[in-house]
């Protein structure tokens, strides 16, 4: 390895990088803002998906038996449910236990002592493996002999599933839009630095430097802009999380939020990679346009 070559190259990159401080700061700032938005978005999306999954996990199907259902029917239903591969667990809850659970859940807000007889039917408490299958399982169970009524959080399930799908679709679009807009802004910024160095580029071309070689310092510059911008964004995000998280928990007590729905290291790596990609893409585009004269 020729250390002089490396030194010359790094020297050129650093010289260019430090010469146009204002322009570099613009590029870095643009990357940082993009990455902050992207990070917030990814975080919120993960938090919502996480909260949604928890809600979905808790959803269970209650299959109430007809009051005149026989013990044989109940056993048959139990066997049937146990064989269905979509069902994670099915538990028979006799009416006595149902009443006891109701008592403990309402904790005295309803005076069950006033009841002269148990109004609850026997039921099966069913948990499905995949939230998407709740509806289908409920429909199957409803048709079984001896089943009177099937209850589950129909609306909640539907809404959550829809929300998840929309978020996934909108998310990909938004991310692409973020990266696109940021690339355009940064490519304009870098084009200014390319323009400021047009004499140098002309001389490089004159003495027979290859386009790849001419591009390389600009690509490195873009890469540096992207990575520095992403790191700044990560810092901002960390500060924002520390400051805002407790308040968010306070404001939304009914949403079960996890402190960190995603692995922070993976998120950080994703964001830094995105920043680097934006920087490289932008500089590649702007120098390419200049070299194709």
């Amino acid at each position: 390895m020729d250390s002089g070559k490396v030194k010359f190259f790094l020297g050129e990159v650093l010289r260019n990088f430090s010469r146009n401080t204002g322009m570099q700061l613009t590029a870095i700032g643009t990357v940082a803002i993009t990455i902050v938005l992207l990070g917030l978005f990814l975080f919120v999306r993960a938090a919502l998906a996480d909260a949604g999954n928890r809600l979905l996990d808790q959803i269970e199907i209650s299959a109430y038996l007809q009051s005149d259902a026989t013990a044989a029917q109940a056993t048959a239903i139990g066997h049937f449910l146990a064989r269905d591969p979509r069902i994670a667990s099915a538990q028979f809850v006799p009416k006595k236990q149902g009443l006891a659970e109701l008592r403990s859940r309402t904790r005295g807000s309803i005076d069950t002592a006033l009841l002269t007889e148990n109004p609850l039917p026997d039921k099966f408490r069913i948990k499905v493996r995949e939230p998407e299958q709740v509806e289908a399982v409920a429909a199957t169970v409803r048709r079984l002999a001896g089943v009177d009524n099937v209850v589950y959080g129909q609306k909640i399930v539907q809404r959550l599933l829809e929300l998840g799908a929309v978020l996934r679709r909108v998310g990909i679009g938004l991310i692409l839009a973020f990266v696109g807009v940021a690339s355009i802004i940064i490519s304009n910024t870098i084009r200014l630095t390319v323009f400021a160095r047009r004499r140098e580029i002309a001389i490089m071309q004159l003495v027979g430097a290859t386009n790849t070689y001419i591009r390389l310092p600009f690509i490195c510059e873009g890469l540096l802009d992207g990575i520095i911008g992403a790191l700044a964004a990560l810092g901002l995000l960390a500060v924002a999380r520390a400051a805002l998280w407790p308040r968010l928990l306070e404001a939304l007590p009914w949403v079960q939020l996890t402190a960190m729905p995603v692995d922070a290291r993976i998120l950080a790596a994703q964001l830094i990679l995105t920043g680097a990609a934006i920087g490289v893409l932008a500089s590649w585009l702007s120098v390419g346009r200049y070299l194709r004269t």
Partner: protein
Amino acid sequence: MISLRGVSLVYPNGVRALDNVSLEIGKGDFVFLVGHSGTGKSSLLRLLYREATATAGEIVVDGIRVDRLRRNRVPALRRHLGVVFQDFKLLTDKTVWENVAFAMQVTGAHTRDVMRQVPRVLDLVGLSHKSRMYPNELSGGEQQRAAIARALVNNPKILLCDEPTGNLDPVNTTEITALLQRINLKGTTVVVATHNQAVVDRMRRRVVRLEDGRITTDEERGYYYLGLGQGQVLSG
């Protein structure tokens, strides 16, 4: 070394810069291209280092078919050529040494070679003692010498000069002319486009005259004006 056959160059705006030009330049030749501004001298040079592409005709430079050269092969061609301009085209934020070394460094030369070549060419052009100075600390003649050093640092077989003395006073012009002659004596083919009568008339070398994009005369030992030596005046 350089061969043009039936070369025409029409710019996109419709201007016909060269019209059916044929020219042979041998190894080690020294050739002046003369003619008024806009007669195609610069265009001819630009074709040779592939800054422009011929509309028609065949161009061979050092064995390379320049008219058919693919874009990604252009750098290889230019490493065989040195080019010098009227406005020097030096980088003002680099010293003389750095400007000369730059031409090697950006073509991926080994540092060992850079350290050997740069002092050699700086010595050749007589700028060794000013290698640490910046271009705007130098006279015009010194700047042009630095530019020539840069053009020569990759050991080209051909040196192309487009009005090399156009910005220089007579003393510096004489210096640069003598330098070009010295370079030629070392075996480098030199092509100089100029409209400096004194330079051409003093040297008495081959003179190719261009008018309106065509070669009108080609003399082995010519003057700037057809058949007129220095000191003689065109009547009318």
